[in-house]
């Protein structure tokens, strides 16, 4: 509950038109790890001569759900890899909470379009891949959170695409990360499964309060899920807009339709 209060509070401070949360959020089953805020100042990234990101200044407050949209090759994945510490910026400074990002960040987790499960490990062992004390119980709890407790002993090969992504989500949640980075994780799913995943994602984000960065090529998806949408074009921010906060967000809302048109124009 505290995270929601925080979020409402923040929205007042940020002076953004806020509406009451329309759907009551169930009390989180686990202690929510607070999200971490992400800040980039003057971050640029080049691969050899090729400049992929140019001079980005960006602050993502803790617990925000941000969507990044843009054409393919615009540098979205590169931005995500920088935040995760998988690449280091050519220039500029990247901070996560109180510290500078240098190397892999244990409280940042990633999801990709492919679930990247180890096919030779059963679902439970995939979720608990990082091991550590009491990993099995934690992995089982995370699997239960994504509704797959019954499939713990299965091989990944027998799961559907959506189930595999849910396993990947459970794996990312085990360690209660402060930041979850999502690189088009729903891109390969059919429409129905995708809608299910959206609902699951929102429910877990609301319960846990981590900071979420979702990369997507689907503007509708960005508006449906995120608090804020960034458009990344040729390595620079072309647009940075807040999305009105009521949830769930109905289709056919005139304000949202207008926003969607604005984003599409910027992409």
């Amino acid at each position, binding site marked *: 509950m505290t995270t929601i209060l925080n979020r409402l509070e923040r929205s007042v401070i940020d002076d953004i038109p806020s509406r009451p949360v329309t759907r009551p959020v169930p009390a989180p089953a686990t202690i929510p790890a607070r999200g971490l805020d992400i800040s980039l100042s003057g971050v640029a990234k080049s691969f050899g001569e090729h400049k992929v990101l140019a001079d980005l200044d960006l602050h993502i407050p803790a617990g925000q759900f941000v969507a990044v949209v843009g054409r393919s090759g615009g540098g979205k994945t590169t931005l995500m890899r920088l935040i995760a510490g998988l690449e280091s910026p050519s220039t500029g400074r990247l901070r996560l909470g109180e510290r500078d990002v240098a190397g892999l960040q244990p409280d940042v987790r990633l999801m990709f379009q492919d679930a990247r499960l180890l096919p*030779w490990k059963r679902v439970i062992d995939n979720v608990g*891949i*990082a091991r550590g004390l009491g990993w099995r119980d934690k992995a089982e709890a995370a699997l239960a959170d994504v509704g797959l407790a019954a499939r713990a002993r299965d*091989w990944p*090969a027998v799961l559907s695409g959506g189930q595999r992504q849910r396993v990947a989500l459970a794996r990312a949640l085990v360690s209660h990360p402060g930041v979850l980075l999502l690189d088009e994780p729903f891109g390969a799913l059919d429409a129905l499964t995708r809608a299910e995943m959206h609902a699951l994602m929102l429910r877990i984000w609301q319960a846990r309060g981590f900071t979420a960065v979702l990369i997507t090529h689907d503007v509708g998806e960005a508006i449906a899920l995120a608090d804020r949408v960034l458009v990344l074009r040729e390595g620079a921010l072309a647009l940075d807009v807040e999305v009105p906060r009521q949830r769930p967000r109905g289709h056919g809302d005139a304000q949202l339709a207008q926003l969607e048109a604005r984003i599409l124009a910027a992409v």
Partner: protein
Amino acid sequence: MSSGRRSRGGRVLRRLGGAAAAWTLPVVLLILWEAAARTGLIEARTLPAPSSVAVALLASIEDGSLPAHALISTQRALKGLFIGGGIGLVLGVLTGAFPIAERFLDSSVQMLRNVPHLAIIPMVILWFGIDEEAKIFLVAIGVMFPIYLNTFHGIRTVDRGLVEMGRVYGLSPVELYLRIILPGALPSILVGLRYALGIMWLTLIVAETISASSGIGYMTMNAREFLQTDVVILGVVVYALLGKLADIATRLVEQWALAWHPAYAVKENVR
């Protein structure tokens, strides 16, 4: 439930039918062969009847010569496989994992690979005479390359996304190796093992035929000197059986090690 059982019964019947179909041609050929030998159409010295091969089999089991020869051949084969396969595996892991090792080793190994290993038999005889080492050395050289190549290839083609995922989840280099890279390379390594087993028997047959004082190859060469064609045929059959046995063994290993793989899935996984 009952329909499930009935369909399982049907499956067993169908499989039996399949087996019968597979065995029809060999059995017919065997009968024709026997008939041709009995009527004198084929001279016994050229190709003895299957029944006389069977008699030779029983006799050689009774006097203990066949088991002794088969045992020593199998021992040579396995020793060569372990030594050569072990070296190939270690080299493959090294070159697959460390670019420096690849630069130093790979082109040399690729060069040596192009030498047919049977071509060095004269040299091996010069080095080792007809001692045990000669046969084991040849087998080891023969099996080393397929294991090496497939290990190297398997490690190189492990999904980089999986390795990166492992790094993100904090696995140490050793853990990455044991939990991601080697299991990922295993299907390829097992393909190498299959090739290696074929080469293993082939090499041993040649080596034992040329220079040995025991083993199945020696048994057949010895029999040839005394014109015991039935024993020669028996040797060929025993080689075939040993090869088949090795094949079954690898298939079992694959089924166990690759249980996760859809292509090898055992019934347990089907829901």
